[in-house]
């Protein structure tokens, strides 16, 4: 047990991961532009899910307002780019700092006043919605009219200014998601990861063992928020337009958390598996409902699929899938 824990992956799992990566690296050369755009959506979902997973999956604090950090990251870097021509690589650091600060402040306020569980979840929604309405009236970033980035010249990619084709974003996101995977894995192996899991399983017991619960919960929130904001920057430069009502939408917060829950909350690969499944499902439903021309059909099947998953595999698909494929992952 100890040896395999140190390794993290069995040889078979390592081989499967290598194969998966090779396929992902080659895919843009094999498929058409539409599939690439869908894969970009998958990778966004996977990365946001991985970021959220640290807060809720590892440290056990249910956040339902992660759109807030997507929005802060997106708006900070985009506004700095539009108004001052600042490169998004510096803008994203500013965005991450803003989001980390906001996340720590929200977490500190909540946990200082012992707001936990369902109340904490509702508080995160409240802060996200509050910020959305503020941005609706924030003229410097376009308010409800939206903030637009100069359209990219697709002839050649310009990674310095993050102007380019979906393929460029695909590879950027792939690297980002892989980095998040490595980071999550190494965090779980460290003291901080064990502390988080102790807090998740039993906060009082963790406190009794001398863990500074307050500090570690804030650290989880700050890291999760900063990672989410980094994805938000990429989203802003990929979409080229930002509206408060879509960027900060409650629907986005919910979308962010469905993939990791369905994939397997607190697992390393759950967010990625969930992102593939959900985006694939969503695209299929969109195509089907366009074919049948019934509005609402997509959402209906989407809801039914969620219901089926929560009924059949409530702890997520990855634990089941990894067992079925004979891959072994240390549980959480």
């Amino acid at each position: 047990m100890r040896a395999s824990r140190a390794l993290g992956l069995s040889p078979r799992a390592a081989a499967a991961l290598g194969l998966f990566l090779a396929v992902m690296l080659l895919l843009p050369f094999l498929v058409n532009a539409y599939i690439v755009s869908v894969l970009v959506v998958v990778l966004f979902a996977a990365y946001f899910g991985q970021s959220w997973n640290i807060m809720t999956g590892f440290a056990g604090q249910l956040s339902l307002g992660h759109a807030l950090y997507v929005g802060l990251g997106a708006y900070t870097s985009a506004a700095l780019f539009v108004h001052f021509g600042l490169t998004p690589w510096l803008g994203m650091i500013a965005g991450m700092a803003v989001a980390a600060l906001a996340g720590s402040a929200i977490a500190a306020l909540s946990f200082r006043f012992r707001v936990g569980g369902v109340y904490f979840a509702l508080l995160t929604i409240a802060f996200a919605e509050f910020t959305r309405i503020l941005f609706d009236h924030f003229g410097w970033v376009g308010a409800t009219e939206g903030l637009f980035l100069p359209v990219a010249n697709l002839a050649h990619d310009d990674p310095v200014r993050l102007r380019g084709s979906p393929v460029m974003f695909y590879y950027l996101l792939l690297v980002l998601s892989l980095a998040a995977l490595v980071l999550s894995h190494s965090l779980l192996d460290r003291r901080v990861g064990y502390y988080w899991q102790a807090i998740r399983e039993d906060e009082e017991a963790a406190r009794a063992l001398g863990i500074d619960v307050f500090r570690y919960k804030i650290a989880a929130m700050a890291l999760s928020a900063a990672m989410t904001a980094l994805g938000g920057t990429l989203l802003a430069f990929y979409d080229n337009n930002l509206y408060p009502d879509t960027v900060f939408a409650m629907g986005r917060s919910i979308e962010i958390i469905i993939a990791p829950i369905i994939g397997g909350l607190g697992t390393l690969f759950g967010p990625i598996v969930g992102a593939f499944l959900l985006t694939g499902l969503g695209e299929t439903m969109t195509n089907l409902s366009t074919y049948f021309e019934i509005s609402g059909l997509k959402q209906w099947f989407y809801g039914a699929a969620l219901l089926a998953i929560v009924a059949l595999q409530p702890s997520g698909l990855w634990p089941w899938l990894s067992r079925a494929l004979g891959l072994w992952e240390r549980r959480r």
Partner: protein
Amino acid sequence: MLYLNIIVAGLLTGAVYGLMALGLSVIFGVVRIVNFAHGEMMVLAMYGACLANAGLGLDPLLAVPLVTLTLFLLGYALQRGLINRYIARPDHEQFLLLLAVATMITASLLMGFGPDARNVQLGYAYDSYQIGAMLLDKVRLLAAAGAVLGAAALSGFFRFTRTGKSIRACADNQFGAQVVGLDVKRLYAVTFGLGAACVGAAGCLMLLLVDVQPYIATDYTLLAFIIVILGGLGSMPGALFGGILVGVSEALSGFLVEPSFKSAFSFGLLILVLLVRPQGLLGRA
């Protein structure tokens, strides 16, 4: 005087909000489930009242018993058939379950009625009463009266009937209730049914005041969350009080600041109360 009119209008609308939120509060207080499909059930009830109006020619006020009974049965069946199995599950699984239910309700409404807004035409829609310099809209007054009656009926049920007392026993001590032989699962189903019934009545009353379309459901869910937390999750007077508070705050901020800013004030109130008094204004610590 204008202020008084605005405050009174907000107060009356707030009573209907309160009845809706009362349903959420009752469900959480007893079953310990956060009903993320609350707004969706509300919109379902509003469409039910629309349908009763279009098909049977019923005034939304007269549709209250029918819609309330339907929602009660739906709520009962939902808890009995589905949610009861998730009682002891982690928060995120319950969230996903109710999110799935919510998504399917909205999608069904979208398929059945389309995305356009609907309302009912009432002969008395623009009638009002004048008391001194104060103007009272007839629809608002009727809706608020209905909401207060509904809340009183529920309160009476919990106080005086055997089932109501059993449900309170479950809420106080689930294990103890089981020990003395109460059928907790059935009582949970009745409770969820009652919560849904509140929403059923509130939906009919709300239709007197606003149009309905499928996508407003999330707004109602959030509104109900805000109200019950302001008043105190699980507290019945708290839900009504919170509803009235939000109704007045919406009316005032819509008038003084800007209508698009009114929910920012509600969320601001929520944040303030959660941080300063997380058990809610009328909740027990």
